[in-house]
């Protein structure tokens, strides 16, 4: 019976240990457990803020958050960074549906309009924003306009980030592409751009320029859409229910891209995002076409470079593809007026630090800074400030915007043309048939 008494005591010991463990578990993570399961909100003085900013943007945003925190010691700022794109917007939607949204969040303006349509965002009214200076007159008109959905304001723009042209000053100098004062010559025509890339290629011995292709439909879309918009084209209309792709214009742009890349070999047919930045920073390409955010990368590698607006290649009304970061208030029925005031103070504090934000290459939406001498001095970032009011956002649809399947469908087909795997005509029919599936589907938003 000795064995049995031993086994009993072992069992009771385990039982006891289990209870202690469970008790410890519940009391140990008490606050989080209670908040999550029982639905008790965070303490009143906490301001939760979600964003999707990584890399250099993330570093600068943390600096701005710290400055806010120091100036507002009575508020506990709880900033959460989530991974870019779908994971971020999915979590934002689900948190809002589950009535646990952050107080304030960053959203691309193209995505804010989708969230607004879905009823996920709180409308903002001019009267309550005015005391904080958050009025239309203080923002880039184009971005402020895009922050409205169906005539109502849902977002406060922080910046505009267009596609820009990076160029190596050493390569361009040798290629004779700089004028007397060291600025890049005008490249506003297909011939001028082709000639510049050809000259740069002679200097680098490898490529004239570089655009990321592999596994990167977004960049391909940025370049194609910019050229296509310059011809006056649109892709979607009527909230995405109609496809208004102009085949002739699209074919003209695709043929131009294919000519530069495949026929003339001025740009590589196969390079991924990281490879493209490396090619530019190591001088294997004289030009690099990407959104303005890679400025930090090339400052870090100490490459001799500068940036300017993407040229008006097709010479129509100037247009360039862009999106904007903005602040939104996810829907929260329990949010008090005092809490809203705190959020607006926070947004104003962020905008007041536009000088920090603008170092990341984005054109600040906050006009008091954008028109200042301090921004003028911020080179090369302020070189392309003029495009802020000529940018084009993705045509509105429930399936368009940054990180959307619209950009994927277009970008994949464009990349196939740029890599020489598909003819422009085949790519256009590919785009049409894929987009038709979306245009004919009832919006889930």
């Amino acid at each position, binding site marked *: 019976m000795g064995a049995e008494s031993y086994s009993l005591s072992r069992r009771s010991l385990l039982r006891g240990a289990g209870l202690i463990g469970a008790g410890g578990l519940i009391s140990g993570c008490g606050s989080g457990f209670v908040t999550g399961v029982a639905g008790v909100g965070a303490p009143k003085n906490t301001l939760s803020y979600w964003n999707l900013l990584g890399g250099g943007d993330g570093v600068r945003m943390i600096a701005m958050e710290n400055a806010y925190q120091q100036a507002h010691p009575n508020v506990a700022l709880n900033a959460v960074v989530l991974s870019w794109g779908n994971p971020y917007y999915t979590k934002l939607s689900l948190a809002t549906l589950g009535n646990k949204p952050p107080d304030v969040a960053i959203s691309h303006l193209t995505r804010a309009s989708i969230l607004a349509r879905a009823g996920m965002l709180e409308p903002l009214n001019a009267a309550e924003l005015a005391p904080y200076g958050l009025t239309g007159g203080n923002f880039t008109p184009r971005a402020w306009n895009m922050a409205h959905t169906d005539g109502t304001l849902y977002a406060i723009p922080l910046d505009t980030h267009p596609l820009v042209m990076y160029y190596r000053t050493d390569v361009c100098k040798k290629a004779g592409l700089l004028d007397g004062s060291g600025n890049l010559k005008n490249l506003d025509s297909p011939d001028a751009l082709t000639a510049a890339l050809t000259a740069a290629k002679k200097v680098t011995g490898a490529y004239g320029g570089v655009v990321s292709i592999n596994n990167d439909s977004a960049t391909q879309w940025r370049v194609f859409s910019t050229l296509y918009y310059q011809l006056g084209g649109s892709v979607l209309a009527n909230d995405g229910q109609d496809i208004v792709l102009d085949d002739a214009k699209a074919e003209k742009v695709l043929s131009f891209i294919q000519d530069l890349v495949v026929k003339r070999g001025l740009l590589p047919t196969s390079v991924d995002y990281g490879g493209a930045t490396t090619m530019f920073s190591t001088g294997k390409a004289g030009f690099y076409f990407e959104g303005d955010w890679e400025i930090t990368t090339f400052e870090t590698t100490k490459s001799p470079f500068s940036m300017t607006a993407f040229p008006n290649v097709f010479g129509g009304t100037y247009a360039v593809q862009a999106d904007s970061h903005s602040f939104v208030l996810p829907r929260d029925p329990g949010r008090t007026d005092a809490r809203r005031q705190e959020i607006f103070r926070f947004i104003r504090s962020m905008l007041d630090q536009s000088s920090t934000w603008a170092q990341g290459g984005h054109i600040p939406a906050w006009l008091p800074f954008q028109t200042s001498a301090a921004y003028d001095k911020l080179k090369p970032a302020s070189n392309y400030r003029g495009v802020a009011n000529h940018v084009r956002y993705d045509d509105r649809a429930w399936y368009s915007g940054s990180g959307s399947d619209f950009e994927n469908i277009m970008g994949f087909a464009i*990349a196939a043309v740029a890599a020489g795997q598909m003819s422009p005509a085949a790519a256009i029919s590919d785009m049409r048939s894929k987009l038709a599936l979306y245009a004919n589907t009832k919006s*889930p938003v």
Partner: protein
Amino acid sequence: MSSTQAIPTAAGARTAVTVAPRKRRGEGRAGWGLATPFLIFYLLFLIGPTLYGVVMSFFNSSLQHSGLGGFAGADNYTEALTSSDFWQAMWHTVLFTLMTTPPLVVIALVLAIFTDRLARGRWFFRLVFFAPYVVPSAAMALVWTWLYTPQIGLWDKWLSAVGITNPPNWLADPNWAMASVAIATVWWTLGFNFVLYLAGLQEIPRSLYEAASVDGATRWQQMRGITIPLLRRTTGLVVVLQIIASLKIFDQIFLMTSGGPNYSTRPLLEYVYDIGFTDFRTGYAAAASMLYFLVILAVSLVWFFTSRSQRKGA
């Protein structure tokens, strides 16, 4: 267990008969008690969501709205079954399985036999062949993307060193992208099958080989007559586990090609991810994943019945 069937002649045995059922009931309770935490999680996070997914597949559910949304009947299933994108993604999943399963079974077997034959340094080869398996998919995808990088990648360097100056455009060529991911996957997951085969080989009694060599059988005859037949059960298990693992392809392709170039590698799970999370159409995504579930279920059932008949035959 067998003590309960003991013939009650001796006193000790009789007590065993009377005590055993009570004791067993107690053990059963303890068993359920120990399994309960797992069962609760199983119900909450597997059975529950699966049933919810079945229901959702008949509704126009959206990621942007709470609740199920409007009733759709069989519309979602009709849409999936008539969608060329759905079938294309299904084919990519099957193609990936066809590309990876044979090498992952055959190479694992060859390497296991090789390692098993070694007199010394066995631990080293076990470690080397198994090590890649513990690398997370994100790290593996990163490393292989670098290897495949055009012009500056190591593969292109190595190939040009042996005279192949015009290597394929690995991940960027629609004809090569799937094969490139498959090669990386074989390197990455080989270790698991390798270990299963190694365990299977160690089960085979050495005396069989001794007897065979006494009878004058060559190495090759021993392999065909002893090793391969006695590994049949292991092979059956490895093949089915591998098919199921390959059908679940998502991580590597999502990370290395995003389903490109031009959707030429998008597997079914990425299709479900795209329509569910990117396009917010969770109802339709649920229907597509139910159809995919049926495929996996069919494979599992085939294995279940063949292995049962094998066991009966044995």
